């Protein structure tokens, strides 16, 4: 999976609008600020929507109706009537029924940009967690290691990789691709069951402020397929009567049980 560049957003919208469900006419859109050292105001369709937005901050999901959006990011306090936006993107298509993160971040060379990422909210198997890693830093290609074993290799800005893993805590670090040179970490990342834990590598290698930001989307859990709770066949035959007898006779029943057991297992 790759991040959706602005041009590609249109094709995503076409796919999504093919599903004519009213419930899907909105999308959840979270906004992440991952440009170091710049407090900003975010305007959506000309209206100030997020003010005094600080680096390393993530908004709650905005439920936006499907449609086109102009996003302008101004340095905090700049007057949109006179100042130029620090970053802007026009005609961004938000499809229906999606979960997106709009990230303001640096490109590999250190220029601020916007990326819209589609978050994978498909259901997981019971016991699993999803890990999404996004390269949104002014840095070259990286590998991501979990417990010193590379799990993602050669990830470049502004792309992502998605893995489904057993839930649990992992010690993760980010190294320059193909090397042992640690750029970020190691840090413990909690991959909670039934969540998509989205990790952003952000900041600038040159400015030595690379860091990890985290977004968690929960409620993606699946259920166990069954509950295997019998191994010996002791209930064989007239089970309920037999159990009733066991409950009444106590110790005597246990003797019967073990005798029966030996017969079953020979």
């Amino acid at each position, binding site marked *: 999976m790759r991040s959706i560049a602005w041009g590609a957003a249109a094709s995503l919208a076409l796919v999504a609008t093919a599903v004519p469900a009213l419930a899907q006419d909105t999308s959840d859109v979270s906004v992440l600020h991952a440009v170091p050292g710049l407090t900003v105001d975010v305007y959506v369709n000309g209206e100030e929507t997020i003010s005094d937005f600080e680096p390393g901050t993530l908004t709650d999901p905005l439920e*936006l109706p499907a449609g086109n959006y102009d996003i302008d990011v101004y340095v905090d306090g700049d007057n949109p009537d006179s100042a130029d936006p620090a970053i802007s993107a026009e005609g961004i298509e938000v499809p229906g029924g999606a979960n997106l993160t709009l990230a303001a971040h640096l490109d590999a060379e250190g220029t601020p940009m916007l990326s819209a990422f589609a978050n994978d909210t498909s259901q997981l198997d019971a016991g699993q967690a999803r890990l999404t890693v996004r390269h949104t830093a002014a840095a070259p290609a990286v590998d991501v290691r979990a417990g010193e074993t590379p799990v993602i290799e050669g990830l470049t800005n502004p792309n992502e990789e998605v893995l489904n893993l057993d839930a649990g805590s992992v010690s993760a670090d980010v190294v320059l691709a193909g090397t042992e040179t640690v750029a970020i970490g190691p840090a413990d990342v909690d991959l909670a069951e039934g969540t998509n834990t989205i990790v952003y590598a952000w900041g600038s290698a040159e400015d030595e402020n690379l860091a990890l930001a985290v977004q968690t989307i929960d409620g993606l859990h699946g259920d166990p397929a069954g509950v*295997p709770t019998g191994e010996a066949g002791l209930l064989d035959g007239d089970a309920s009567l037999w159990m009733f007898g066991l409950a009444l006779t106590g110790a005597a029943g246990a003797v019967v049980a073990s005798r029966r057991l030996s017969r079953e297992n020979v």
Partner: protein
Amino acid sequence: MSHRERSGPSRAVWAGVLAVSVAALAVGGYSVSSADEDVATVGSISVTPEASADATRTEKNQAPATAPEVGRSSADLANQSAPSVVAPTRVSVPALDIDAPIDALGVEGDQMAVPADGDRVGWYKFGATPATDGGSTVLAGHVDTSAGFGAMAPLRQAEVGTLIDVELADGNTRTYEVVGREQFDKGDLPVADLFERAGSERLVLITCSGEWQADVGSYTDNVVVAATPVLDE
């Protein structure tokens, strides 16, 4: 007897999200009734007075004068906190002579993990606990093992009104009352209902029953007992 830690912050966050979604729907020209449906789907989660007021004041097709302030939080990895879980540690059903320690377990393959020791009971650690705000706490134990009958074997005699005590890691005990017992073919086990993590608080106990299938080493059926909390006097 003090019982449960309520997750207050999450409730507040939900209210914030609802307030935002209500406003966004109104901007998009949707009727207030679809906003109400959104509220209804979260069931027992209470909406803050502010959010309710917004929902009633914002009329159909009328955009609010100013955009709602969207909630935000630090995305710093250091702020990522695994929620503190108060695990159940022991289950007892005095009327059925069930009294067993509980192990927190997840899955084995695609099945719920169950302690190999029939004297112990497994709690599905990815689901609810009696200390969480609603949802289904699932406990399962072997009806039998090579060592004999398991602690949960008498579950098959549970009746409506049978009392069940669950001890928690924080020292509290939660009492439940059986509201139903049902036997399911394993292929028809309603796992989505049994493992439901939302909705009202309930306790689900599961063991095996039915016919023994020696060829595959398992029983044909599960016995499921559902219980609801006994309210404080």
